[in-house]
């Protein structure tokens, strides 16, 4: 009887890894497709490769940030798709995660504004700069209490994530650039996409490191 009950129980790796990964893949795919449609829409009229990558990473950030925010607001639902042990963890970490989600959303919005800046994008340069700088500054201010409220485990996870993201960045972004010998026409845009790729790698590594704990 006991064995039957155990065999019916969904394995932990399915609940904690496979299901969240599938949800993330579906949401990420839908958000990316929507972002690409938006880039090709008459309102934007297409962007260069570097700015398009920045838009995609910005959308990824906004989706993840809103996901964390929503998951923290509804711990019962959030525990099913966020990388946490249970709903109680979301309740206990509400302050940290709410600020973290808000910071991520703001950083995503800032990156989106910079990517849509004129002359390629439809956003006037002054507005893009104001939105970009404002989002980055407010997001950073919000992330300070997150760091202060983090204990040594979270700091260790972040440190490990940073180290892993450096490796991923070197492996994928560095390798890609050297293979294609890319000479970008807009250096500021390429810095933008380099930073966004690093952010993206950091998020992936952060999930891996957190999953290990």
């Amino acid at each position, binding site marked *: 009887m006991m064995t039957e009950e155990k065999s019916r129980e969904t394995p932990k790796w399915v609940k904690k890894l496979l299901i969240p990964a599938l949800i993330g893949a579906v949401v990420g795919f839908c958000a990316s497709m929507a972002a690409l449609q938006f880039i090709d829409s008459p309102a934007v009229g297409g962007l260069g490769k570097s700015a398009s990558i920045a838009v995609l990473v910005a959308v990824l950030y906004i989706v993840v940030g809103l996901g964390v925010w929503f998951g923290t607001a509804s711990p019962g639902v959030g525990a099913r798709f966020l990388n946490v*042990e249970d709903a*109680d*963890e979301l309740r206990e*970490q509400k302050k940290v995660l709410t600020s973290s989600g808000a910071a991520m959303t703001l950083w995503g919005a800032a990156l989106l504004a910079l990517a849509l800046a004129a002359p390629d994008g439809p956003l006037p340069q002054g507005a893009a700069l104001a939105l970009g700088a404002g989002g980055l500054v407010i997001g950073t201010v919000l992330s300070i209490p997150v760091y202060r409220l983090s*204990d*040594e*485990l*979270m700091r260790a996870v972040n440190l490990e994530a940073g180290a892993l993201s450096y490796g991923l960045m070197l492996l994928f972004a560095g390798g890609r650039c050297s293979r294609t010998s890319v000479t970008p026409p807009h250096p500021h845009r390429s810095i933008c996409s380099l930073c966004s790729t690093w952010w993206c790698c950091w998020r992936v590594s952060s999930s891996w490191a957190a999953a290990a*704990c």
Partner: protein
Amino acid sequence: MENRLKHYRDAKGWSQGELARRLGVSRQTINAVETDKYDPSLPLALRMARLFGVGVPDIFIDHWEPVE
């Protein structure tokens, strides 16, 4: 690293959350230490030992033997 943190916590009748509160860390940290997924820093290990009134080697067991 193998440890007896759960043993000492159970002896005091504390939950993971209660121990976390007393040590000033999150419940996730206590859970990660108890399940051998994370080795705490030396200051935290010292605080744990002090809280339970034992030595650090009583909580954290290292099977290493010095080479003669």
